[in-house]
Each structure stands twice: as C-alpha cells, then as structure tokens.
C-alpha cells in the first residue's frame, strides 16, 4: 500500500521542519551523575572491549616518551573525582597518522600519533585532552546516542507512514543528529579552556590547534563551506569563538602568566614526539600522500637541521612527489578537482596515477624541482653522516628514476657496503644492481 496525498505530504514537511528546527535549541551535556539505561550500559561495555581490542591488535603504543607525555598531561587535565563510577580516566596513543583524538564514554581518551606529530607544545596537547575529557564528563557519548536513537526511531515510524516521502525525513534526521553533536563539540571546546587554565597550561595555545587540524597539504579534503552538514563546527568558527572567550579572559591570563602559573610546556615536547612524527611521515609516504609527509619532514628539519634521518625523510618526500607541485596549485583546490582526485584514488593504483602524472607536460617543471630538492636533501644527509644507508638508497632510487644507471649502481653498491648484515633491503639492493648491470651490458651489446 502506497501512502500518498496532501495530508501525508504536509505531515512529512511538518515533521521534517520539526527535526530541522531541533538542533536550533542548543544541545547540552550533563555534568551531574547520569544513571545508565540498559542501552547506555551496552555502550560502556563495548567501550571496555574496545580498549582490549586496541591492545590486542597493536593499535596503541604500549611504552615510550610520547605515551608518558600524554599520560602526564592527561592526569593534569582529567577531573580528580569523576561523577560516575563507570567513568575512569586513562589516556593512550593510537598509532595512526590521521590527526585526530577521541574519547569513549567510560573515560578512555586517545590521541592519534599523527596529531601529536603536528602539535607544538604541551599546552596544545592539554587543550586537546581537556576537550576530550569534557566529552566524557558531560556524558556526551551517552546523550548523543540517546538522541540519535530517539530521532532514528521517529524516522522509522514516519518512513512507514509516508512511504516515498520518507527521504525528506531522512535528510532532516541527519541534519538533526549532527546538529546535536556539533553543539556538544562547541561545549567541549569552551569548557576545555577553563580546565586547561586550572591545569596550569596556557589556553591561548588552543586556537592554534584548530588551524593545525585544518591543514590539508594534499588538497584532497572537500570541506563544507558551512557547518550545517558537519558534526563539528568549522575550524575557523572554533578558532573564532575560543579566541573570543580568551580575549575576555585576557587580564586574568596575563596575571596568571606573571605569577608563573601558566606554562606552554615547550621543553622536551618535540623530542618526545619525534619518533612519532617520523613514523607518521613514513606512513603518509606509504599511503602516497607525500605533500603531508613533506610538511612533517620540513617541520622536523627545521627543528633538527643536523639530523641526517630527517634530511633523508625530506628527500624521500620530495622524491615521491615526482611530478606533483609541493603545494597544490589553485586548479587542484576546487571542489570538483578534489572530488576527481578522490575518485582517482579509488579507481587507480598508485603506480597508474604516477604514470599519468609523469606523462603530463605540466609535471615536467615540478619533477625537476622535486628531484633537485630531493638530491640536495640526500646530499646534506651524507654531509652530516658520511655513510647513511637511507641517503644512499634515496640517491640510488633517484638516479635510477633519472636514468643515470651508472650513478645509481654506484649508490646501490655503496649502500651494500654500508648496510649491516641481514638488512631486509639487501635482496632488493642486489636485485637493483643486477638489473642495472644487465641494462648497462645490454646497451653495450647493441652498440656497433
């Protein structure tokens, strides 16, 4: 039986309007005890199981200075006495290059290694962790799930009643759910400011985090122009409203600063996250996102100009850029171009995309520049450390790409000289050397 006709349409429109209007009344967290309903308890149970899963799958760091840092800062921003017994605050690091952080309703707070890699000091980390703590303290996960269940339940009932008009309700539903979540995000941002101050960190570092989160070196992120269809406020908005609040606190913050009660925590931060930053950059290279890797490598080189490992990372990023400009040109930044790039990633392999780039006339100039930069970085690494396997490998691969077989062979040969016995790259290096030799011999054979 199909349900059609004016009354149904009016009903659908009315319900849709109601749902659209729902997020206009701002959602709020609850910072008092919240008794668990059966489905909330399920959420808490699943959260605990996820903690085990992260460990079992090796998704979390189990030791190291970065984990110690996160736990130390987390302990300063977490509430001393959680309001519910199912909340127990603990902090971890997820091994993922994606800059993100999240909290589970039972008090687990995680920050991704990729976010740690781009933060600049402890105060920024404190801002991130305080934001996540507020999600837990305000029971945002539980309230958000309750809200979504209620709205989806209503949607299902309406869908049955309205038949083909159900799609209208669907749109309104999505809007209503993400609107609720967005409000809670804003609440967490604003409440985190006070917590950061209480913990003795400078909250004026917080707006900078939003700018960092907004980085899109690849030029592939299609961002909405308004927050209407986003579950988070836009980064500019977040930066704007936090700055506004901080401006209102300026006198107090200055006074606290003079008393030495606010710190940014620069000392030791970069060293603690250094291995994660390098690992994140390597992961971006593996995922064929060399522009992001380049940004990370450039930051590392800026901080540690005398470290050959960072120079090699920089060289690798430039080398993998091949025919891509280091900064995406305007033509790549349109919504259509970004969508096209996303589609290409889904339908073409990395080598197919590379071949396409290398075959394009527009890629010649960036290719030359990137190769020159890569070579300079590798040579700088060799200047800093006369035998550096990573630099030799990079130069060997670069020379091969340029068709300089003899040069490439010498670098592979030097790599083999310097590599420790049993290095897993040895078979690859020997194979390259054999291939180069074969090609050189073949060239000699064909000569008159």
């Amino acid at each position, binding site marked *: 039986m199909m349900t059609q006709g004016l009354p149904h349409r009016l009903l659908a429109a009315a319900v849709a309007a109601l749902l659209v209007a729902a997020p206009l009344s701002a959602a709020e967290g609850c910072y008092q005890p919240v008794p668990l309903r059966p489905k909330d308890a399920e959420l808490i149970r699943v959260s605990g199981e996820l903690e085990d899963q992260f460990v079992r799958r090796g998704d979390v760091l189990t030791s190291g200075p970065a984990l110690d840092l996160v736990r130390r800062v987390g302990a300063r921003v977490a509430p001393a006495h959680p309001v519910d017994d199912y909340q127990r605050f603990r902090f971890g690091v997820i091994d993922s290059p994606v800059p993100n952080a999240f909290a589970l309703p039972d008090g687990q707070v995680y920050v991704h290694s990729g976010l740690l890699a781009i933060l600049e000091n402890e105060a920024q980390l404190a801002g991130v962790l305080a934001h996540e703590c507020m999600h837990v303290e305000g029971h945002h996960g539980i309230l958000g799930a309750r809200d979504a269940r209620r709205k989806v339940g209503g949607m299902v009932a309406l869908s049955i009643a309205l038949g083909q008009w159900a799609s209208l309700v669907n749109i309104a539903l999505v809007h209503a759910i993400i609107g609720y979540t967005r409000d809670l995000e804003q609440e967490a941002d604003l409440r985190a400011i006070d917590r950061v101050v209480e913990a003795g960190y400078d909250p004026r570092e917080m707006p900078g985090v939003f700018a960092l989160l907004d980085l899109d070196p690849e030029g592939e992120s299609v961002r909405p122009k308004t927050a209407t269809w986003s579950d988070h406020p836009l980064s500019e908005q977040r930066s704007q409203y936090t700055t506004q609040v901080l401006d209102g606190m300026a006198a107090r913050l200055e006074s606290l600063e003079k008393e030495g009660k606010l710190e940014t925590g620069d000392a030791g931060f970069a060293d603690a996250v250094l291995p994660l930053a390098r690992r994140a950059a390597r992961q971006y290279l593996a995922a064929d996102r060399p522009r992001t890797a380049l940004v990370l490598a450039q930051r590392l080189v800026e901080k540690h100009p005398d470290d050959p490992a960072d120079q090699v990372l920089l060289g690798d990023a430039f080398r993998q850029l091949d025919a891509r400009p280091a900064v995406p040109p305007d033509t790549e930044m349109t919504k259509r171009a970004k969508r096209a790039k996303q589609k290409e990633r889904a339908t073409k392999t990395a080598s197919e995309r590379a071949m396409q780039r290398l075959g394009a006339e527009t890629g010649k100039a960036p290719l030359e520049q990137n190769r020159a930069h890569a070579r300079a970085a590798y040579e700088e690494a060799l200047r800093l450390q*006369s035998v550096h396997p990573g630099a030799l490998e990079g130069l060997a691969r670069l020379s091969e790409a340029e068709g300089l077989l003899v040069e490439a062979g010498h670098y592979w040969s*030097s790599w083999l000289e310097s590599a420790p016995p049993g290095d897993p790259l040895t078979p690859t290096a020997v194979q390259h050397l054999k291939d180069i030799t074969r090609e050189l011999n073949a060239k000699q054979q064909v000569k008159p």
Partner: protein
Amino acid sequence: VISVRRAVLAMLLLASAASVAARSWESPAFAANERRPKRIAILAPRAEMVLARVNDAVPFVKETALIEDAVRAEAASVLRGLGYEPDVESLATARLSADPELKDLVTKLEIELGQLADVASQDPRDIRAGRFTVGETAAPVAARTGADGFLWLESQSIVPSKGQRALGTVMLALFGSGGVPTNQTSIVALLVDGHTGELARVSSAVVAGAVLKEPGPIGAKAVRSAFQDWPSSTTVRKLTRRQQRAHAASSEVASTPAAVAEDEEASARAAFEKAAAAAAAAPADDAERVEGRDDFAPAGPGLAADAASPVETAAPVATPPREAPVPEPPPPPVPAPAPAPSLAPPPPRSDDAKASWDLPESSRPAPSAKLAMQMLPGGPALVVRNSTREPLRVSVELGAFATIAPDAEQRFEASSGSRRVLVVREDGAEAARVSVLLGPASLASVEILPAR
C-alpha cells in the same frame, strides 16, 4: 563507537554481494604455478561485527576477536591441507610489537595493500593482467620472515536485531520492496607474492549463519568458502588463450629473492663495476648521461659533470674482492676495440693536469695503459698501483702529478663524488684516464696495467 552510516553501508554491500556466494580471481603466474607462493605468512586478520538495530548499531568487539582467531587458524589449516606452508607466527601482533623494524615494514605493506584492495575491488578481474602490485614493499618483509607470500584477510559480519527483521517484514508486506535481513558474514582474502609484490589471488565469500552465537565456526566457514577453489601447491591450471597472453606480458615482472648469499652480493657488485667501467668507456653513453643530469641542475657535489670528458682507456676490469670469493661474473660486455698505434708525435710534457685533460681527443695518443678498478670499503680515497714496467705520473681530480714507480702504489685522499684520474708517461704522453665515482665510504683501488 556507533555508526549508523557504517552499518547501513555494510548492509548494502552485503546485500549486493549476497547473490554471489564465493568468487576468486588469480594471476596467470599463480594459476600456471610459475610464481606461486608456497610459504605464506598470514597478516593479522581484521574482523568487524555489528548488531544492526532499527535505530542504531552496536559493534561486537569480543566476538570479532574470536572471528579473527578462527579465520587465521582456518586459513592456515586449509593452506596446510593443500600442501602450502602457512606461517601464523612471523606477523603476529605480539611478534611485531617486539620488533619495531619489522612492524614498520609490515605497517607499510598493510597501508599499501589496503589501498590496493580498494582499487582491486572495483575490478578484480584485472589481476589477470598483473595490474595490482605493491612493488618492492613486500620484498623486505619476505626477507625478514622467509615467507614468499602474504595473506591479507578481512571479514565483516552484520547481525540484524529482531526489530530490524520485523521492520524488514513490515516494509516487505507494505511496499513489496526490500527484504528480511539475515545474519551475514563476508570475507575477502588477498594473496601477495612476496618476491614481486603482485597480487596473486583475490577471493571473497559471503556466508549466512548465527555468527553471534558461533563467531568462530562462522568465521571458519567463511574462510572455507573463500578458499574452496584454491589450488593445491602442485596444481597447474590450464590457462585460457587470453590468460596466456596476459601471462606473457607480465612474465618480465621484477622479482626479488628473499635472501642473497654473501658471495652473490659481492658478485653483483663486481659485475656492476665491470659494466660501469665499460659504459664509462663509451662516449655516447656519457653524453646521454650528462645531458640527463644537466637538465636537473642538482645541488651539491656533481657526480656526473666530470663524465663529460670521454674516457680513452680500455675497459677497466674488476678484480676479485679480497675478502670473498667471486663466482663467475656475467658475460662481459663487448670489449672495446684494441687501441690503434698512434702516429702523431707525443705532446710536450706538461705539469698542468687540467691542460692535459682538456686536450681534444684527436690530439691525444692512443692509451698505452689500462686501468682496473675495484671498489672497497674505506675512504673516500683512491689507491693507485702502477703495475707496468715504467714509472708513471698520476693526477687525481686534476691535482698535482705524483710519480709512481713500477710496482709501487700511492694513496690519494678525495671527497666523495666523481673524481678524475689522469695517468701520463714520463714524457708527458697520456697513458690512460678514467672518472671514478667515489661513495662516501668507497676506497677505489685503481691498478695501472700495460695496455697489452
């Protein structure tokens, strides 16, 4: 934690896949058993399981662990039964946690494989044309584990709630569309050749069953279904003509062995030195090479700029290394023609190495000596030994000449990069010349030998 969107997407995917219980695609090399991995290391499987309710979705976490364990064990068991050597230990999470270097290599492999899986899922038939490869990323993992193939397993299970089923029934009754959702578990298995990085086999399956009650057995059932037409380790499939054509086209794919013997490494280096010296003796090659480098205007010490000057020596011969025996090197390149005796009078003796080096080819005498080179660890430096019967004067990188008596040798310190070696006789006539590429830790042993 809860994603309605993910649950809905998964349901749609499963619904579309449900019509096909199990499918598989193989590369021709795998089918023909020419390049078929035998020792297969199993990457940690990933499983997801979701209870899809009418108004939300809840992940099952504990159950996914059971599925992952069962999937790994069943895949190993099936492969063992087919005559393969499955390896469930080398890439286990605990092992990787204890070995950061291996973990980095495996993470890289998994990232690339994950991306490749997304593309391959669009048109898995292209595996027959060798379109899907992770290149050299697999080889270091193979070298570390001794495996020659890697198995990547991913499973998804959807458990519709009672409400969800009831809703499906109502929708079906009211509108005649949709259907009653049932438990479904899907699995995708990718086999990667550890030597070539090529995707050797893709298989997928969808099975029904009470996965919530029996996660392990259902996971195992999904594996058996996906592996049902997996050939035994010795089976050779007959290729269709199309497959044969594809196979012929992809048979040249670069293959990296899992390990190389020490003497193989030395042999490869010696063979390369020989080929490089021969190439250096060929002016045309040098011209091409210099042209290539000039385009890029590289920063730092130029390695090829010196090669602009053609080398007139006979092809240097790589001597065996001192520490390791060298097996028979590959066939030597076509030898350069023997130098014709020069009728032109020798140019006057000069102490200016640059002027001598810059002499046009037509003004130079035919080489009276040849240079044998060997790259050794140490340096960067050159050790030049005079094995002729006359004293010779040697200039390195156009520096001052040093006279080396017969059977004597002299060490020249040099920085890394391409370094010119000019050998002249006492009367000033050029005897030989060559450019040597010094690595940061290379000691070039250059022996001057009579041309005949």
